[in-house]
């Protein structure tokens, strides 16, 4: 198994390399330059622009810039400096990574906890009124753009006199030490983004669960189990659900990159300290190493997610072998 993982990880490297080159190309193809954003400031002269370009190595040809970055990554694990913040990219990302992962995992968890049982339920009651209602509600989550959902939730909270309308904490708890009150305050704020983003994923997962459940129910071994006279509950849980959940494991692996991209809009709208807005800013401002590193990070997460999913799958389903 170890050799399998090793081989897969090694196999990722060329892919990542290609991705990094393409991402860099896309970033470089965009018109304008990093210093454009400062033009309006009267302190900013052409000399300053030239000085900044020199400091940042932007006066080098793009290919040289790319290989310089790549060299840093390969030899020193140095992902470059953020132009905007004048700090190593890794430090800037590190500051926000904790909350990003926390929020993303929570929303994923919420989607799963809601979607899997509902998927199973609707598979068994395909045309019942209740599963149609569930379907409508699930798809409603998918259909309402998250920025709108957040606006509506916040408006309702405001009308009810709440103060938890954005951010992760009330102002006084932001830099307070951890305490029960702080945890409660966090939970009080957290449910809005988690619900707004989490519900979006429910419909897709639910549909997948329902479909694979239906697939499995049609399989011979389930029929056999039924024919044997195994109790319905046992048939469902031991035979059907266990097998039906396998495709979802792969899906879970694919959803790892949403750690970054899934929260861009909602983080802007609800003012969350996550990586999402950072990526948006770096792309718009041409903070190239930041953008490149984040895109790479996201790609690596996806590849990693795939790998993890494969391992988990092999563990959950004995028929799958490392190959």
């Amino acid at each position, binding site marked *: 198994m170890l050799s399998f993982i090793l081989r897969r990880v090694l196999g990722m490297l060329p892919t990542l390399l290609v991705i990094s080159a393409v991402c860099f190309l896309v970033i470089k193809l965009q018109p304008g330059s990093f210093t454009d954003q400062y033009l309006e400031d009267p302190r900013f002269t052409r000399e300053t622009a030239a000085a900044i370009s020199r400091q940042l190595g932007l006066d080098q040809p793009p290919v040289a810039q790319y290989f310089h970055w790549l060299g840093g990554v390969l030899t020193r694990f140095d992902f470059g400096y953020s132009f905007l913040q004048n700090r190593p990219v890794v430090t800037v990302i590190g500051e926000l990574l904790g909350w990003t992962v926390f929020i993303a995992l929570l929303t994923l968890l919420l989607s799963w906890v809601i979607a899997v049982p509902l998927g199973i339920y609707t598979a068994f009651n395909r045309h019942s009124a209740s599963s149609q209602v569930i379907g409508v509600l699930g798809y409603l989550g998918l259909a309402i*753009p998250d920025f709108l959902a957040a606006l509506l939730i916040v408006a309702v909270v405001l009308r009810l006199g709440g103060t938890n309308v954005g951010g992760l904490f009330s102002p006084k708890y932001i830099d307070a030490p951890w305490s029960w009150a702080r945890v409660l305050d966090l939970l009080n704020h957290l449910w809005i983004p988690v619900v707004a983003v989490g519900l979006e994923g429910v419909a897709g997962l639910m549909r997948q669960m329902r479909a694979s459940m239906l697939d499995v129910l049609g399989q011979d071994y389930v029929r056999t189990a039924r024919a044997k006279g195994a109790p319905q509950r046992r048939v469902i849980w031991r035979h059907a659900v266990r097998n039906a959940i396998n495709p979802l494991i792969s899906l879970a692996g694919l959803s790892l990159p949403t750690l970054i991209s899934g929260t861009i809009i909602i983080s802007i709208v609800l003012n969350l300290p996550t990586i999402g807005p950072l990526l948006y800013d770096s792309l718009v401002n041409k903070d190239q190493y930041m953008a490149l590193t984040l895109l790479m990070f996201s790609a690596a997460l996806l590849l990693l997610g795939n790998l993890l999913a494969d391992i988990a799958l092999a563990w959950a389903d004995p028929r799958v072998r490392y190959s």
Partner: protein
Amino acid sequence: MTTLAAPEAKSASTLSMAWRRYRKSRLGVLGGWVLAALYLTALFAGFLSPYSITTQHQGHEYQPPSRLHLVGKGGLSWPFVYGTRESRDPVTFARKSVDDPSVQLPVRLLVRGEPYRFFGLQSDLHLFGVPLAQGGSPQVFYFPFGTDQLGRDLLSRTLVGGQVSLTVGLIGVVISFAIGILMGGISGYYGGLTDTLIQRLIEVLLSFPRLPILLALSTLIPPRWPSTWVYLGIVAVLALIGWAGLARVLRGQVLTLRSLDYVSAAQAIGARDLRIILRHITPNLSSFLLVTATLALPGFVLGESALSFLGLGIKEPMTSWGLLLADARREGFQTLNLYPWLLLPGLFLVITILAFNFFGDALRDAADTQTRL
């Protein structure tokens, strides 16, 4: 002859069985009808909308939806609207629109109004509207959905915006499926080095985070392009990202089909490869493709709205549901408190996505020949 009739009868019965299964899902059927209605509305948007989407009715900014009245002074009458008086609160500067019962005008069917183009034809016939005022008398408008900040009719904007939002999906799906089928087909059919290369490419494409790369690519669309081009650019961007997942699944399907007898037979009689892929393999996947396409469409529609929200999508003077919603959301709480009707395009968006999903689910169930519960 009888030997030929048999498979037809069989396929007919498969179809009718599928139809029966489709009919079983009431929501799916409803979704199908809703979609048909939406696309028809989009097609005839110019005729159905009472005004042009760019006409600014000065003095009627942020006017709430006009109410249609049936009971007038003389009892029941043909539906009519009142004139309105606009004013501004001296303290809060909020706009107020008050009905003016002294002015009543009937809403007529098939009235002449502003010209629009329909398949290259110029017309000024609108399904309904308040005819232009004759000499001196004040012009009265009928705004079923109210107006926006500039006094433009929101119903017209919603209907015409639907043209963009609904076709973004269709064109996008067509492009991404064309690429996906070709690449997936080639990859699965030929195998070997071609397969490996294409699989690598797909892997790379799939590894890109969706929204960020969408952002990156959409900033590449030159801002100086006219809005129609921007529209096409956005569709292309959405499609370029969308095909990889499909190609991967297709390859698997093709791999299985390749070993089937009739494909081997076609190969044996010397059919060209592309022909085999397109004529023999693809049709076998049609139900799968149809279902996948239906379910992929909402992604394009939502993708457009996300881009418009970030200011990188459709631009004035074109409009789309995403843009209308982004406008409404930019005004944020004012919209909710003062001009809630601006959220109506959102309702259309939501209904469309719901309809696509139910329709797609029902199609899938219909195409699924295995499960019988």
